[in-house]
């Protein structure tokens, strides 16, 4: 059995021997896994550390933190230290306060007597601590639910509208012969070549003129008519036989019914790809919301993250937890739909 496993793992180049290039290949890939996943893993791991543990240098790999204990007569839990006694033996004591090089400590079993210890003679006691409060506090102390809701709302509404509007346009462009069709198509392809970054100022004017500043709709409306989406759906709808649409016409279906009952269901694969893309785009979008949404109660998650890290004293424990929560949905979507995504990109070359 083990033999078979080794054989399988070393099955390369058809010669049965592990070639130098194979070593290089797997070396590169291993480094790649470390480099690509490592930083995100480190972030996720760190997000479970207490604030105190995050301040330690060098940072511990796992979420260890200074142990603390409730000591009678003290309101707050006190940090525990391993103290080296004169006779060389060690004992665990709680530190009350530190003055210069001298730390005032008590034995938890004997809270009354304060012992003075040289700071060099003590070491922190570490214990495994999963600081889940980094996450739970987000819900209690911060506007995180609000940001989450804003992001979810913008993502879902924009995606649904993107799908419907773009599918309608793609249907018109792929299944009708009307005067001006080529012009409209070129118009939309033209939009493909105009990146939103170069029309920031005037788009801001339009959005503010419509009274959409500081409203999620100011982010949603400009985003939904993606030329990429129209183009992708049109290419797909061209492959739906015209006969089906004629058959539906003979079946007394109105054009809207044909769109809704025949064309939409048959375009499901393309719609799914566009939906995934749209969710990614909207969830991750940064520059445009940054311009349109100025009030913190309208912030999306990326904006909240940005605002949070820009504060004078960054509360990294919460920031890290929030970052993890922001990347989690995308990671899940990717884990389940990666085949759709990768083949969608490989075939369309779009992003």
């Amino acid at each position, binding site marked *: 059995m083990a033999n078979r496993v080794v054989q399988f793992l070393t099955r390369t180049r058809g010669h049965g021997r592990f070639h130098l290039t194979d070593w290089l290949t797997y070396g590169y890939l291993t480094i790649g896994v470390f480099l690509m996943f490592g930083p995100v893993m480190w972030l996720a791991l760190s997000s479970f550390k207490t604030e105190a543990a995050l301040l330690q240098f060098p940072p511990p790999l796992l979420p260890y933190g200074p142990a603390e204990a409730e000591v009678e007569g003290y309101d707050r839990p006190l940090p525990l230290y391993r103290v080296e006694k004169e006779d060389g033996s060690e004992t665990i004591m709680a530190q009350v306060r530190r003055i210069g090089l001298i730390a005032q400590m008590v034995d938890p079993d004997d809270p009354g007597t304060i012992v003075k210890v040289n700071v060099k003679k003590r070491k922190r006691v570490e214990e495994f601590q999963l600081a889940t409060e980094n996450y739970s506090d987000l819900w209690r102390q911060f506007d995180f639910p609000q940001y989450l809701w804003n992001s979810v709302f913008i993502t879902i509404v924009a995606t649904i509208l993107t799908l419907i509007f773009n599918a309608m346009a793609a249907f018109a462009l792929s299944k009708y012969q009307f005067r001006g069709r080529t012009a409209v198509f070129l118009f939309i392809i033209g939009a493909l070549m105009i990146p939103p970054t170069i029309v920031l100022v005037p788009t801001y004017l339009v959005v503010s003129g419509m009274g959409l500043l500081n409203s999620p709709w100011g982010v949603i409306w400009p985003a939904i008519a993606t030329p990429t989406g129209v183009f992708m759906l049109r290419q797909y709808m061209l492959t739906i036989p015209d*006969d089906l649409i*004629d*058959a*539906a*016409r*003979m*079946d007394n279906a109105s054009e809207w019914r044909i769109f809704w009952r025949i064309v939409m269901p*048959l375009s499901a694969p393309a719609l799914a790809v566009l939906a995934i893309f749209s969710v990614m785009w909207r969830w991750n979008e940064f520059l445009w919301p940054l311009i349109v949404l100025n009030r913190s109660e309208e912030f999306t998650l990326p904006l909240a993250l940005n605002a949070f890290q820009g504060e004078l004293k960054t509360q990294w424990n919460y920031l890290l937890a929030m970052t993890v929560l922001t990347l989690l949905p995308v990671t899940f979507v990717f884990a389940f739909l990666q085949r759709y995504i990768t083949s969608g990109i490989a075939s369309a070359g779009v992003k």
Partner: protein
Amino acid sequence: MARLQLKKVVKSYPSGDVIRGVDLDIDDREFVVFVGPSGCGKSTLLRMISGLESVSSGEIIIDDQCVNDIPAAQRGLAMVFQSYALYPHMTVYQNLAFGLENIRTPRDTIAKKIAEAAKMLQIDHLLDRKPTALSGGQRQRVAIGRAIVREPKIFLFDEPLSNLDAELRVQMRAEISQLHRQLGNTMIYVTHDQVEAMTMADKIVVLRSGNIEQVGAPLDLYNRPENRFVAGFIGSPKMNFLPGVISSIDSDGVQVKLDGDEEPTILARVDGAGRTDGEKVTVGIRPEHIHVPGDQSTGRTAAPNGGNTVKLAVKHTEQLGSESYLFAELSGGKRVVVHLPGQTSARIGDIIDVQIPAPSCHIFQTDRGEMALPRLDAPIDRPTTPQTDQ
């Protein structure tokens, strides 16, 4: 009741006219086949009747009402497509129900109609399947069923059998004919296959580049083609065409000297009125009308009315058992195909004498239209049973 009239119907595209002024009357309960080579406009004409294609000029009249501006859905017609056009995301039942739902038919009525149609077409066990799980023949039946449940005034078929294999095609041909007898609706059927046209039609409409070449019953088209195109299109293998010059005209018919020094002269029993000696014409002889008297295996000997005797050099033979083909040349080198029943004793290299009955010969003019000269007597191959419907 459904009568269809086309009056000077034209379809123009920027690139040119596809239908060039078609006039046609189709009676109630008639089975009409539009036939012609690809690109002749037969499908376009059908789609114009259906309403899927607009009419550039002229009128389409169904039951005395001009339907030019009535959309496809409201003309009360049903169409069976070449690709079947079954909705791939719906089950067979949903496919059949879709059209009825669209006109807000009550559910129980839908169920009843579908049950009837499914039983008639023997697809009742397939109702829960998706089209992708069906064979070609089954899809074809569903497509027909979808048309039946709507109880249309006229059925339109757009090359419905061309995606089936040969055996299935023969079977479906018979079933569609039977369906026509059973339902008694007017049916219009488009095909490029003249065999389908001959076997199914009450009336065949032969089309070429947007014009009607001839309209008639299948045997009329076979026996009395009005021009060279129809003569060549109807019948398989194709009629032999031999260019020549009129050498004499009398009450027996017209004599044509075939082009080429060594080629023979052929007598055809056609009316030469209005023709002149020396005029260029084309002689048409169907391969099955050439007789080989000496051939031991065939029962066919001398032609009843006598006629032309011609020498043929056999260049190639094809023996199919029940029939055989000779690919031969006249003495001057003109190619002629002979179609014989049974098996032939002729070998490659043989020079044989064949008889071509004068009444079976056609003559076509060579000017525009290539019209046929009228034949003098009833074609010999026609059964001489007395006509009942006077």
